């Protein structure tokens, strides 16, 4: 089984978000970049398939050379090879077209992407790859088991979960649950050393256009001060929620 894990290079979840150049660009100053958390759960699940079922695991990223430390981290965690499509990720549709080309050329059976990246929250790349290549697709996937070509998966739904049966070739939009938080791997020294020798192939993008453009950004308005209510005065809280906030 050949698995491709698509990884996005995103600001760490604790990052303060600011915009620059007249609010037209995300300010990367002082920002630590990491593997998108939803992708990392998928990558870790892919390691399980590698160790238990002999799968080959490649990772792919669409980005400039600056994303290579994040790609190397994925290799240090245990992916066998990496592919970087040498292009700025203009929008989700553009990225999906680039990754679909990688999937087509690599003949992957399973493509694991995060259900969304925590930067632009588009949540469209896995579904678009599946549709462009006519592969099966399970989104918000929290569990996946594979027996030859038969796939049993679980997806999170609003208010619960759904068990799904499908088959390879398949694309999943993964998230927490694919593995537990405690199963996520921190690369060890041996992994980091080995990652330096693994192939990181840079390919040029195919001719594709973006469908959307972020023209400008802004931040939510600052919050007003909190109203503190005495713990012995619950009536006041109910009064405020009812009469002032009109929330109950």
């Amino acid at each position, binding site marked *: 089984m050949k698995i491709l894990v698509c990884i996005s290079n995103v*600001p760490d*979840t*604790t990052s303060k*978000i600011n*915009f620059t150049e007249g609010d037209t660009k995300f300010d990367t100053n002082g920002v630590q970049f990491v593997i998108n958390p939803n992708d990392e759960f998928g990558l870790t699940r892919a390691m399980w398939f590698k160790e238990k079922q002999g799968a080959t695991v490649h990772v792919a990223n669409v980005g400039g050379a600056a994303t290579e430390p994040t790609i190397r981290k994925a290799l240090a965690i245990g992916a066998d090879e990496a592919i970087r499509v040498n292009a700025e990720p203009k929008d*989700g*549709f553009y990225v*999906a077209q680039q990754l679909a080309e990688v999937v087509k050329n690599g003949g992957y059976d399973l493509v694991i992407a995060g259900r969304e990246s*925590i*930067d*632009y*929250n*588009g*949540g*469209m*790349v*896995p*579904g*678009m790859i*599946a*549709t462009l290549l006519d592969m*099966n*697709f*399970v*989104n918000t996937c*929290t569990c996946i088991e594979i027996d030859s070509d038969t796939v*049993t998966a679980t997806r*999170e*739904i*609003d*208010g*619960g*979960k*759904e*068990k799904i*049966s*499908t088959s390879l070739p398949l694309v999943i939009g993964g998230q*927490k649950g694919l593995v537990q*938080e405690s199963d996520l791997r921190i690369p060890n020294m041996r992994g980091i050393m080995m990652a330096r020798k693994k192939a990181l192939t840079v390919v040029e993008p195919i001719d594709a256009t973006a*469908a*959307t*453009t*972020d*023209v400008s*950004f*802004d931040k939510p308005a600052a*919050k007003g001060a*909190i*109203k*503190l*209510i*005495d*713990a012995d005065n*619950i009536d006041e*809280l*109910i009064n405020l*929620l009812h009469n002032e*906030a009109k*929330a*109950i």
Partner: protein
Amino acid sequence: MMSVLVYTESENGKFKKSAFEVASYAYAVAQQLGTTVTAISFNADSNDTLGTYGVTKVLNISNDSLKTFNAKAYAHAITEAAKKEGSQVVIVSSSTDSKYLAPIVAAKLKAGYTPNVVTAPDNTSPFKVKRTVFSNKGFAHTTISTAIKVIGVSNNSFGAIENNSTATAEDFSPALTDADFATKSVEVDKVVGKATIADADIVVSGGRGLKGPENWGMIEELADVLGAATACSKPVSDLGWRPHSEHVGQTGKPVASNLYIAIGISGAIQHLAGISASKIKVVINTDPEAPFFKAADYGIVGDAFEVVPKLIEKLKEFKAQNA
């Protein structure tokens, strides 16, 4: 200019609350474009209520094989409807199901897709929308350049707005094939009769301050009194005290309720990002330095084990008086 198409979600034949919000949004877009709204509904008992929110035509699908949501089959039906109507704008919600099918619809129609949109388009030429990015820590103003646009409306952002029209339903039978059902639902395990985080007006959420899963009784009771959904912080879900589906925050479910009550949650930046779209936030925490106090509208510094039972009791009295 052909009609704006809106996917109006239903469950067991009844429209979800979000269906009326997306219909209202579609009406606002249609007004801007000088056209009308067509809804596509799957096995709805009655389509009449859609008229209240500005829908004038409904493509009504009655098909037993679509009783359970199937993203590919639903996306096929919506795509076919968009082509039939010549729609240049397709509107969906931000539910888990809508977010599943929207990228499929967009790829099939070669359409630009913007999810998490919070206001009516700023402009229709070029088509420009405002959406949340960076998990609610920012907004992007995004133009869509493709002929067809797919818009995902953020839950509880636009609201359901009455625009009295009369919805005329016509039967619609998309040409589905076995390939559309290659991914099948085997079993749905869902809380019944309770509000879900995605749909609820009020969400009651518990954190590590509650000390253990055995103490969730009062969270559930408070939620019951308020008709609220229950949620939890990331550590609580990581510890296995509560299921993943209740985890709200940056890597969990986003919350956009009218009222969010955080109990024993300190308010890590990732948690606050995920819940910031909620309109009114209340925090109950023993630690007055907890970051949540900077993000909330109302707060009580106090022990949840003392405050919450009192709150339940007082709310019961309030509900009895205001019933």
